[in-house]
């Protein structure tokens, strides 16, 4: 049965293409985007692949239209995504708040380049880490995945769709120029081993249906045309979806929306740990930077330094619990990333001592294993 999606097996794929194939396998049938480096391979491949699988592609006039188009398509009940890089991601912020507010599941892929502003369009950066959860106004939550290989571009894009549709929230795959454009082996597992989350229509008749029913942690999703005649608004609203300025109702509504993520953080947050057991120093990293850290930590071990690896696989929710545990055991922490200390600033809140270090690094280059090793030697206490 060839319905146009990639067959199980091993492939040699660019990260951005792996992302496209993961999305199609997850059931994504609408893509909208606007050209921006270094995410262009995603829209170009989507333009080619969408008609092959019976889906739709639109290149909109800007990134605002792209994300809003994606929110519109998702409200048609169709899994939808967009892809961009820093400047385009900045333009999308207001709409991310809308998706959170009306609980529309969408996936955004941000292939980071160097910032701020136009920055370094063709070179690597990791400066959007904070923005992915704080870029829009008001209190909201996103879930953010941090792939460090084309394989994870594939896996995490599928996971992003599942999380988006399970919790009805905007989910971001936060890649970077190198992960997006590098070519590596990508294994597509047998289809029955891939979990795909679909939406189920509510079991109540339309006249009893409340789109933001307080009785649910995640109220059932209803698409336009499903016959429920719903009204959704970005205004503060009650269970019926109608605008309200009642503080009590809105407090309850906003908290319920936030708690979808807060109460499920243990299920959502992901990380990778290596050599942490006996380590005195834990190196925290994510995305392309973690690839340098693997080597640097191996070299440090060879030199007799007890160093471990803590790789973030989700940025938000931030995998703070295990980090706090290790810090409480007296382990020192070094955060390495291609920015001036964004994950460092977050990690610092969970470290009860002063031995947490940052390695400020301007975008454009990934710190080499040698540079990281030098920093490890500088901060390491036997």
């Amino acid at each position: 049965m060839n319905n146009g999606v990639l067959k199980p097996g091993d492939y040699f794929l660019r990260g951005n293409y792996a992302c496209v194939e993961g999305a199609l396998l997850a059931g994504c049938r609408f893509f909208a985007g606007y050209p921006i480096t270094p995410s262009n391979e995603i829209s170009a491949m989507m333009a080619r692949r969408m008609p092959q699988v019976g889906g739709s592609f639109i290149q909109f006039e800007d990134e605002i239209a792209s994300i809003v188009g994606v929110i519109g398509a998702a409200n048609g009940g169709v899994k939808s995504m967009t892809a961009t890089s820093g400047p385009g991601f900045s333009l999308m912020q207001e709409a991310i708040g809308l998706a959170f507010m009306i609980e529309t599941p969408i996936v955004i892929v941000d292939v980071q380049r160097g910032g701020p502003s136009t920055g370094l369009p063709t070179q690597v950066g990791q400066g959007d880490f904070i923005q992915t959860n704080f870029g829009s106004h008001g209190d909201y939550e996103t879930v953010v995945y941090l792939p460090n290989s084309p394989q994870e571009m594939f896996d995490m894009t599928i996971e992003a769709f599942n999380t988006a549709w399970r919790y009805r929230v905007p989910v971001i795959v936060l890649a970077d120029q190198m992960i997006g454009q590098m070519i590596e082996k990508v294994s597509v597992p047998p289809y029955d081993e891939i979990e795909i989350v679909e939406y189920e229509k509510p079991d109540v008749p339309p006249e009893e249906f409340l789109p933001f029913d307080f009785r649910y942690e995640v109220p059932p999703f209803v698409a336009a045309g499903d016959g429920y005649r719903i009204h959704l608004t970005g205004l503060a609203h009650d269970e019926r979806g109608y605008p309200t300025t009642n503080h009590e109702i809105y407090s309850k509504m906003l908290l319920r929306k936030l708690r979808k993520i807060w109460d499920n953080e243990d299920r959502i947050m992901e990380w990778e740990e290596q050599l942490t057991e006996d380590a005195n120093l834990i190196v925290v990293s994510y995305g392309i930077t973690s690839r340098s850290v693997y080597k640097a930590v191996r070299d440090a071990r060879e030199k007799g330094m007890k160093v471990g690896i803590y790789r973030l696989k989700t940025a938000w929710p931030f995998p703070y619990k295990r980090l706090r545990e290790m810090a409480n055991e007296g382990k020192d922490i070094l955060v390495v990333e291609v920015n001036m200390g964004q994950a460092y600033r977050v990690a610092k809140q969970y470290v009860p001592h002063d031995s947490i270090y940052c390695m400020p690094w301007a975008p454009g280059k990934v710190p080499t294993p040698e540079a990281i090793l030098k920093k490890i030697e500088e901060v390491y206490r036997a």
Partner: protein
Amino acid sequence: MSEAKLIRPSIDEIKSLLRVERLPHIWCPSCGIGIVAKAYVEALLRSGIPPEKHVLVSGIGCSSRMPGYIKIDGYHVIHGRAIPFAVGLKTVRPELEVTVFAGDGDLSTIGGNHLIHAIRRNDDINVIMINNFTYGMTGGQYGGTTPEGSRTLTSPYGHIEGTFNVPLLVASIGAPYVARWTVLHYRQIVDTIVEMFNIDGFAFLEVISPCIIYTDMNRRDAISLMRMFREQSDIDHKADLRNIGINRLNEETRFVVGKFVHRPSESYQTKYRRLVEKVMKGG
């Protein structure tokens, strides 16, 4: 679709499509938006398309509050972005009749870029733009349609910018359906909206409804506003659109209204579905 049956829907039929529990609405006494809301409902009833298959999308502003009162699927999104939302939805659910209902500020000012590109692509949506010549909800600032000379909150010494002639703009990009009425022309608005439902492409209607509070039409009442429209409107379906801009709002203003453009069209969505069929067959 001009075999206009003159059987008016009953009050009960109209009410069945209203979220009565949300009334009273937010519009000021003498505001014209409600007239267009009712015209939309009447057109919907006449369309033959079940209410479940109609969708309203709006942005931000007085006019954009309209979908909140209509009992069909409605999406009240962010300022200026109703069109891309509608386009995304229509593209994946072509069987739905998607209508954008918003104001001049939302559609032609902050959302101007989406307006022109949706026309260029020829997206299969209906756009009803209420032109009240101002930003009413925020207290009466000037916008892209505010006539020169107007004293507004942000042009206290008189507005010195130019003014969009929106039907000309829309027609010049190639929209297959362009009409303009004032809120006096209720029957024509209903007929026009029914026709818009049948256009495979971008169908545009401007409804002139000066803000009763914040424009130079203020200190008037609905009756004198309607009298003005009766005395100062010219129905001219063949009007030269270059000459229909509303650059002043006073006793001298002529409101040229009519169905200016109505031509065969094939939308982006129809073309795209054909492309998909071809590609899926291996073409």
